[in-house]
């Protein structure tokens, strides 16, 4: 599909152009009689714009300049009665893709030109789509797996890594939420700045505020020294709030304010600090349900939903289980100077069928234990010990 703008004040010419181009059912055609209306509609992102050289008000060349400064990729065809070589050259120099002389054959020439350019547009869109689908695996070497589920996740990471959007990573415990957060940070423009991890579930409630916002010396009884909080530490970098579903309601409102204002003040200080950080949050809880149950603020929930990445549980990742198992086995063998190990067919079959409630974390622990237990450098079914909670 190509979106085409016709900017032509001569209604008869425009009517003929529309009729001629509308034979191609892949064209969506919009007609404007002046440059100003065309500019006002550029947000519709046309692929091709045909521009009359002699428009009333703003002339065709000025309009082309405006179109090109809005988006260099928009293709412009100038239609003109001017046969002067200088005019033609100046149109091409200023970025026109084609120049059509308003002659007897104009309508056929326009049709041919727009059809050719539309083919380029289609090719360009296909290339963009393919680029989008190609995942640079070198960038995500820590994320092991080739399953559709994990490739989908990598595509999402790739989409959002370069921008500044807030990201919420959801998924069961042990699915690799921190790995994804690291991938987002280390592939972003903030990679050389701090990556600060805060596990909300691991900090006692009474210390959380001080941990996040810092405090001044003497701000409270135990505040013997000034402390820089995690938000301040993450300035120009990324702060990763893991297990955000564990956050206390009163702190949730403070967090919401920080996210809205991007400024904090240490406990015991009136000085407001403007900060520039990217927030990545993660949770294994169903935050929607938490909102319904009144344990999580609805406004914060929506604020965090900037970009959602859901990590699949290990049991849904098929052959990734074996890829991960072999990866952990090789790592463990190397670190502990053990000989190279293999995994028996029975053990593989069992692992593929197992439910993995502890996900990748559980797999790693079981493989490392099995490597120690195994004999003859082969992990058999007997070496796999599953602990039920």
């Amino acid at each position: 599909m190509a979106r085409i703008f016709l900017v032509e004040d001569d209604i008869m010419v425009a009517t003929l152009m529309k009729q001629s181009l509308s034979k191609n059912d892949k064209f969506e055609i919009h007609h404007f009689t002046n440059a100003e209306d065309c500019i006002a509609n550029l947000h519709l992102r046309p692929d091709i714009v045909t521009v009359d050289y002699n428009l009333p008000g703003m002339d065709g060349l000025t309009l082309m300049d405006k179109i090109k400064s809005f988006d260099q990729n928009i293709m412009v065809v100038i239609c003109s009665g001017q046969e002067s070589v200088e005019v033609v050259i100046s149109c091409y120099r200023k970025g026109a893709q084609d120049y059509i002389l308003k002659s007897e054959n104009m309508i056929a020439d326009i049709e041919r030109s727009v059809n050719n350019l539309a083919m380029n547009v289609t090719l360009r869109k296909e290339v963009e789509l393919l680029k989008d689908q190609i995942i640079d695996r070198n960038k995500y070497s820590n994320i092991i797996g080739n399953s559709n589920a994990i490739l989908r996740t990598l595509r999402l990471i790739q989409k959002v890594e370069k921008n500044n959007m807030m990201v919420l990573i959801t998924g069961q415990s042990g699915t690799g939420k921190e790995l994804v957060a690291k991938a987002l940070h280390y592939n972003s423009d903030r990679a050389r700045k701090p990556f600060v991890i805060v596990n909300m579930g691991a900090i006692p409630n009474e210390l959380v505020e001080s941990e996040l916002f810092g405090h001044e010396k003497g701000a409270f009884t135990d505040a013997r020294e000034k402390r820089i909080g995690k938000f301040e530490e993450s300035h120009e970098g990324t702060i990763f709030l893991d297990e955000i579903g564990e956050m206390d309601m009163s702190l949730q409102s403070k967090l919401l304010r920080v996210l809205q204002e991007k400024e904090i003040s240490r406990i015991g200080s009136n000085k407001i600090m403007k900060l520039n950080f990217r927030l990545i949050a993660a949770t294994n809880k169903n935050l929607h349900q938490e909102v319904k149950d009144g344990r999580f603020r609805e406004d914060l929930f929506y604020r965090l939903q900037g970009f959602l990445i859901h990590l699949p549980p290990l049991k849904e990742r098929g052959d990734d289980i074996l890829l991960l198992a072999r990866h952990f086995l090789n790592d463990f063998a190397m670190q502990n100077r053990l000989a190279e190990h293999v995994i028996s067919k029975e053990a593989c079959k069992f692992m593929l069928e197992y439910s993995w409630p502890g996900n990748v974390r559980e797999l790693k622990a079981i493989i490392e234990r099995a490597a120690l237990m195994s004999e003859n450098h082969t992990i058999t079914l007997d070496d796999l010990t599953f602990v039920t909670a």
Partner: protein
Amino acid sequence: MQLNIINMQTTNYTNLDFLREISDGNDVFYKEFLSLFLTSAPKSISEMEQCYTARDWEHLRMLAHKIKPSFNYVGLKELNHCAAKIEEIATKKIDSGEIQMLLDNIKSVCAVAFKELEEEIKNGLA
């Protein structure tokens, strides 16, 4: 002096082959376009006359430039040449009465051509 651009002929002045081809069987478009021509062409010719009387060369040049291709769409190629000539003279701003003759010619041809087109609208593509 009378410009001998249009000879007496028994066949139609207009030629609608181009319009039929581009209509691609779309009768609505075909009739609408002819109606559009019948609305705008007389208006433009009348404006050209007014500009000529007022010796408003720039406006006359623009009008001639604009009407020029529209004659082609209905097969009035000779009138396209008349309009081109008017445009050329208006650009130079030196007229020895030629423009009036060209305008008279356009008007007399159009008087017949418009009737043909009105008839064509009634019949349509069929």
